[in-house]
């Protein structure tokens, strides 16, 4: 097993899928010669040429819309949104078109497009290079939203997203790109979309989260273990549609649930997780469900102290788990 970074997992998945299936192609801003502003598509232009690694005009709606058309023709487009913050010009193509293509045609047409987008803060990105955009798309039936936390999950889930016959939004945490490293098998593998994953077994408090916050929870759990607090961690991996069964099982496991997101709190993905627990686990709970999220301010500011104030941190997660354990 090789140890690779989160972003290397993205690149490897793209490269291997393009080698496996000649219908897979990449389009987006700066994905060609430049290899992407984060270098996620590094080397693909050289290996597969400009026909399959397409630098597009700076126009997100066209990147997704043209991708949908190509998908309807039978190809497997992987569209890159340079930052998730810039997806909104493409929102109509994603919500009105990709998500509804199969439904509105009564299963006649489909739009198997993968839309990759770096999200998340802590990189001095200011208001418009830091946001978590999943909640905007997480009540749109027809879409799937994947938000992996580890290189292993990135690689296996990106491959499954590309092979999916439905549209998938694949969010990559940009701070995790080089911060998070992990083991990845040398042989071919894929992971199922729609399945959460237990990242740590525990008995006192359950943390349900996704993305970079999984690592915050793991770090906090390690420290808390020294104090005799046992933390159970469920990584949603797919935030829409939710793996409700896994959520319910994880909540029942300890009866004390902390939900963590880097997104702003109200109407976030974890609000839906909370509702699922409320509907199904009332008599299993030993404490109110707690949510740890960013404040309900528009987005995280640029200046370092303000950004820090906005962000969730391993310390904040640790404190929240401790509070619940002591409830």
């Amino acid at each position: 097993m090789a140890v690779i970074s989160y972003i290397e997992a993205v690149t490897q998945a793209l490269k291997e899928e393009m080698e496996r299936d000649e219908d897979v192609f990449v389009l987006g801003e700066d994905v060609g010669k430049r290899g992407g502003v984060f270098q996620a598509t590094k080397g693909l232009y050289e290996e597969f040429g400009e026909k399959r690694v397409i630098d597009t005009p700076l126009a997100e709606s066209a990147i997704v819309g043209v991708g949908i058309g190509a998908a309807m023709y039978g190809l497997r487009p992987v569209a890159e949104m340079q930052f998730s913050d810039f997806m909104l010009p493409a929102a109509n193509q994603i919500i009105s078109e990709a998500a509804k293509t199969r439904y509105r045609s009564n299963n006649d047409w489909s739009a198997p497009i993968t839309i990759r987008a770096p999200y998340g803060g802590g990189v001095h990105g200011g208001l418009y290079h830091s946001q978590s955009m999943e909640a905007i798309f997480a009540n749109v039936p027809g879409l799937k939203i994947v938000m992996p936390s580890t290189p292993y999950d990135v690689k296996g889930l990106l491959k499954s997203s590309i092979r999916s016959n439905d549209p998938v939004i694949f969010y990559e945490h940009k701070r995790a790109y080089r911060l998070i490293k992990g083991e990845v098998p040398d042989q071919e593998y894929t992971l199922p979309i729609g399945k959460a994953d237990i990242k740590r077994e525990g008995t006192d408090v359950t943390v349900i989260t996704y993305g970079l916050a999984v690592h915050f929870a793991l770090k906090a759990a390690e420290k808390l273990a020294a104090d005799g607090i046992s933390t159970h961690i469920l990584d949603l991996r797919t935030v829409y549609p939710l793996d409700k069964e896994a959520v319910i099982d994880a909540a029942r496991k300890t009866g004390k649930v902390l939900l963590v997101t880097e997104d702003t709190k109200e109407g976030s993905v974890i609000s839906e997780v909370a509702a699922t627990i409320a509907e199904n686990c009332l008599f299993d709970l030993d404490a109110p469900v707690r949510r740890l999220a960013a404040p309900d301010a528009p987005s995280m500011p640029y200046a370092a102290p303000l950004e820090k104030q906005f962000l969730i941190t391993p310390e904040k997660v640790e404190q929240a788990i401790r509070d619940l354990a002591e409830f």
Partner: protein
Amino acid sequence: MMKTGEEENKVENRHHALGFSDQDVLNMYRIMLTARRIDERLWLLNRAGKIPFVVSCQGQEAAQVGAAFALNREKDYVAPYYRDYGFVLAWGMTVREMMLNNFAKAEDPNSAGRQMPGHFGDRKLRMLTHSSPVTTQNPHAVGIALAAKIKGDDIVSFVTFGEGSSNQGDFHEACNFAGVHKLPVIFMCENNHYAISVGLKHQLACAHVSDRAAGYGMFGRTFDGNDPLAAYAAVKEAADRAHRGEGPSLLEANCYRLQPHTSDDNDMTYRTKEEVDAHKKYDGVLTFAQYLRDLEILTPDVEQQLEEQIRSEIDEATDYAEQAPFADPDSVLRYVYEEKD
């Protein structure tokens, strides 16, 4: 030299030069007339309370049918918009299917009653599924062309939309993408002079939608949307250019919307009956019929026969569609995602 009365009335045969036989143009007219008669029937059905909604094609049939004849109906991909009754009939949709669509019945090939009428799409006809937010289909048509280019397939991707839609961002993004990549796309704007109630002068600051072609480095042309032969010639030229690798074209059919926007609209709140009546003189269904009469292709006998055949076809289709079942209410949850067995 004095001309005899006969010579003065003689109309120039314009279709032979385009390679059409008399039977071809009669077929063309038959489809135009069928679209018109279907549309008229839909209004009656709507006013009788049988169907909830009509979106009308009247005034645009000539451009639609002429365009379809210029494409390869066995190979090309099309993304028609919600007024394209004439186009989809010419492309292979049947009268019965049109009626099933308007009655929103399970057998409707477009969406099985999921969408409002006129939202066409049929994969076996290589006709993309279409939504209501306008001009979203334009980037899709570009994607079809891009995919065909990647695969090395020699096809044309054809998309239609209204002039109101030509102000949307997706119009611009799609045109620009197609222009940059020199893709075989034909953008055909059916300029019917109205975006619901808003007339041309409040929509465009340029004289023609096709003027915008220059900004995308593509071929642009405006033609008489009441003349199916002009539509044919323009689309044929654009298709030939596309096949030669000369990239996309932006065509504009100059039409006029003879009916309100939909059955829910009252156009007399923003335009006058006199204005509409003045445009009826140029109605392509009437003027093309006259052309065919003048050339003695559409004789009184042929005309009567045609009207009778179309009427009985529409009667039959209406009865069938009215009696056909709706989709099972439980099917509302089907096909959100791929269903594996």
